[in-house]
């Protein structure tokens, strides 16, 4: 009996060691760029409760396409850019639901690049993995259930990324090994990602000639976004930033917005009016650079002040935006 116990203990210790190594290695192997998402989320939760009047949600198109500094400097809007890379519409809904426990914005600016796409029966991806850093666990659990279905392997990958993202051993960098607790970048930009670099595009390649509809899953996600915003008395402005290729959801978003009393700002339609320069305003085929983002933000700011009763934060002494953008001693 003693020997059996000894052997059982030996097996347990071995498997315990394996589990310990895997758990300890897991943070190193998380999907690329999600560490930055964690920093941004952590910064978001440090914002004073209910201090933000305009929240920006969506994919990297919004993350890199809407300058919170421009919104503040020109219109006095107190906004936080809560968008993150890759987001499909269900991930955007998750970010909205999570953020509402901390902020009660008057307006939600929702970017629609991935409005047609939802995660269903999905593999664990960097996009889904970014939900790990959100604090509304009920919302996250529901999101995971919808995304993975009953695929237990995906759950394993989510909770133990070292297994699913093991190929990341090949791209480990110094930054993977160093924990940075604060992130100046997100603080001084209030969530917005300034992107340098210019990619020259041709105007004719930025179109919305071919139009498509939304499937039932995408519609359901939109309905839920509308419902949660309504419940919290938040007005919605949908918007689409320009990108290389065909924007297939102009018509459907226009109709949807009108039907639900929302504003839809489509920069494909406004491309010439806003004065985008396809040779200067893009950092790559999909994303605007800092010049393009200024133009988007300028136009959105005008829409916001014309349609909503927002506080001019510039007149609030010691406000968050003034401090974060220009430092404590700046005028």
């Amino acid at each position, binding site marked *: 009996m003693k020997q059996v116990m000894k052997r059982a203990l030996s097996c347990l210790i*071995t498997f315990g*060691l394996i589990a310990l190594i895997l758990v300890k290695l897991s943070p190193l192997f998380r999907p690329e760029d999600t560490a930055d998402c964690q920093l941004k989320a952590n910064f978001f939760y440090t914002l004073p409760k209910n201090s933000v009047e305009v929240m920006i949600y969506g994919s990297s198109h919004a993350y890199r396409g809407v300058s919170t500094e421009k919104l503040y400097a020109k219109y006095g809007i107190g906004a936080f850019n809560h968008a993150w890379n890759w987001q499909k519409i269900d991930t955007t809904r998750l970010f909205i639901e999570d953020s509402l426990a901390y902020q009660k914005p008057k307006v939600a600016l929702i970017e629609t690049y991935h409005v047609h796409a939802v995660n269903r029966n999905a593999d664990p991806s960097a996009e889904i993995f970014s939900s790990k850093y959100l604090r509304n666990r009920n919302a996250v659990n529901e999101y995971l259930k919808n995304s993975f279905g009953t695929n237990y392997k995906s759950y394993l990958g989510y909770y133990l990324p070292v297994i699913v993202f093991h190929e990341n051993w090949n791209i480990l960098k110094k930054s993977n090994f160093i924990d940075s607790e604060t992130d100046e970048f997100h603080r001084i930009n209030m969530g917005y990602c300034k992107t340098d670099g210019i990619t020259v595009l041709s105007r004719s390649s930025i179109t919305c000639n071919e139009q498509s509809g939304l499937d039932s899953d995408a519609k359901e996600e939109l309905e839920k976004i509308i419902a949660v915003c309504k419940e919290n008395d938040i007005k919605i402005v949908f918007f689409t930033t320009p990108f290389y290729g065909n924007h297939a959801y102009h018509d459907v978003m226009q109709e949807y917005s009108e039907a639900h009393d929302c504003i839809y700002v489509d920069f494909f339609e406004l491309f010439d009016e806003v004065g985008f320069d396809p040779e200067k305003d893009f950092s790559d085929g999909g994303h605007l650079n800092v010049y393009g983002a200024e133009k988007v933000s300028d136009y959105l700011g005008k829409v916001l002040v014309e349609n909503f009763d927002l506080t001019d934060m510039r007149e609030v002494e010691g406000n968050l935006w003034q401090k974060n953008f220009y430092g404590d001693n700046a005028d």
Partner: protein
Amino acid sequence: MLFNSVGFLIFFPIVLLVWFAIPEKIRYLWLLAASYYFYMCWNAKYAVLLLTSTVITYASGLLLEKVKGLEIDEIKKIRYKKAVVALSFVSNLGILCYFKYINFIIFNLTKAFSLININLSVPAVDVILPVGISFYTFQALSYTMDVYRDDIYAEKNFFRYALFVSFFPQLVAGPIERSKNLLRQLAAPRKFDYDMAREGFLLMLWGFFLKLVIADRIAIFVDTVYGDYTQYGGYYLIVATVLFAVQIYCDFSGYSTIAMGAAMFLGIRLMENFNAPYLSLSVGEFWRNWHISLTSWFKDYLYIQLGGSRKGKARKYLNKMTVFLVSGLWHGAQFTYVAWGGLNGLYQIIGEALQPARDKAVSLLRLNRKSIGHRLACVLITFVLVDFSWIFFRAQSINDAFNIIGSMFSADNPWIIPDGSIYGCGLDVNNFRLLAVCMAILTFADIVKRRGIKIREVILRQDYWFRWIFIAVSVCFILLFGKYGKRLDSAAFIYFQF
């Protein structure tokens, strides 16, 4: 169900736990049920074929035993016995032929007739090759032959015999077990042996390392290059061909090793299927150490039956060539496999025919056969010859194989290695480095094995803390550096298609 799948990682512990919990006497029944479930995970229908093969060979065993007991004259007895064996062989090989070779036969007959202007329009038969059919058919047939030769008594217990044919660790890709080894072990109730299980665990780890870390990593490069050999000519093909030799070794021996390890948990010792084959000094030695269970099967049940080396040199060479051609065909219904087998047969015949001349040359040049340099040269030459034959094994057609050889011999792009172009075929420089380290580990393990040292026994002799850390680190190493997808799905073993 693949060994390298999550399904197996769930299936195997359940099988073990139940096996451990139930009385020893009925454990074989549980293993039989588990084996059929394992097989039916691919295609439930094809379990009927497995059962058919089992029933035929089981019945033939009983019949042979009955004939042996008949009080008739010896010549008649032998005739009856031969008739039973023939019946077993014809029916089993008939099934194998139909499912594996029917379309190959139809295609080539049609082609042959078209040469003499006769147009045959026979449609192709819609059959899927049942996984492992070549393996279990040969295993079942070896039983018939063993009973015929009085090497063993016929098994009376149908379920035990059915387990012998379908034992899940080695069912779909070998080792092709002999009744003398496996059936005898199954005859006695198996007990859980902790030391055997530990050894089995280490073997399984080694098998997973070979398959997931080495073979599946190399597969990416080889598939890219061979998949588009017109684009990746010259040195790309040379490197891919060298790596393919390692890939197929690690893939197949990986499977066999996992099979051996899994069986050891259940108290069964399967035969060794590989013994460091690439360290062989001649092609003949290579074949004595490569896929040992199949080579010995052909030797025992075909080569010797054909007369072996007993009927003169010419006949011996003919027999050898026959064995290798059949062995090639056993691997698949394609002429590439036949050519691969034929080439290996030819190596051996030429090697033997030139033996006196080689001996003379060695003595004239005063070469020391035992020196490291001489042995190394022999190992290299053997590897080059064997690797050259792998081109036919890997190519999609004979024509492709000749084009690949042509491209290799006119190689004029050696810069792809120093300038890093080679890293653009699916494996980057870090993966190549990792591969080099792993192949060094493999070479070390093979050298040690040839010297009669079992690394797993050395590990198990170490202190408990070393064993814990070694196993934990090894498991994590395989999980980190193994090749498998986000859904934890990894590549099938190459030999499954045979």
